[in-house]
């Protein structure tokens, strides 16, 4: 079975802090994705990566950056956390191609005070 893990289930940070959210997948998937999920808004794509060292902006990249130094790991960075970044963050991975299933991690619920 594909396993996607995220470094924290719950995280509380202060405004202005730099925040790192880590995601690791164990199935040698080429593609990895970061979403945020907010009530009534569904899932919105922040960044994605189709290969190591490669990244593409999604629909809401402002205030975020990413890093993919190794194929299995995709990190989301909040350079200076703000209260409007309080949300659930979901990581996903998939094989190449739009027809492929995305496998999701359990999510990180981030609260920025």
């Amino acid at each position, binding site marked *: 079975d594909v396993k*996607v893990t995220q470094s924290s289930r719950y995280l509380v940070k202060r405004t202005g802090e730099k925040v790192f959210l880590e995601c690791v997948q164990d199935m040698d998937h080429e593609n990895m994705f970061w979403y945020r999920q907010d009530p*009534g808004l*569904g*899932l919105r794509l922040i960044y994605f990566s189709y290969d190591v060292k490669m990244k593409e902006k999604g629909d809401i990249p402002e205030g975020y950056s990413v890093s993919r130094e190794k194929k299995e790991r995709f990190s989301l960075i909040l350079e200076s956390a703000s209260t409007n970044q309080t949300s659930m963050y979901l990581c996903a991975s998939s094989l190449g191609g739009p*027809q492929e299933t*995305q496998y999701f991690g359990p999510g990180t619920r981030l609260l920025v005070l």
Partner: protein
Amino acid sequence: AQTVTQSQPEMSVQEAETVTLSCTYDTSESDYYLFWYKQPPSRQMILVIRQEAYKQQNATENRFSVNFQKAAKSFSLKISDSQLGDAAMYFCAWSSGNTPLVFGKGTRLSVIA
């Protein structure tokens, strides 16, 4: 831009009954894929069912089936013999070769015993 619309924020169904969740989408592409994902409370998002746009036959997975109407750009999910474990958020999603997954805002399904 591609959009996916789920017009029912919440639905409920009696155990053992059938329920249909609606989804419409907007695209000018002819080759694409449609998905339904399920997110149970406090659990990871998983794929329920997938449909290739070039296939006329509706996809079926056990108690889950879709009604795919390409001309109408409609992709509804039917759950037969509903079970308590079907209670979840359901997300409709669309993708193509040029675009990563676009999600709808979700439908929360409650199952009444």
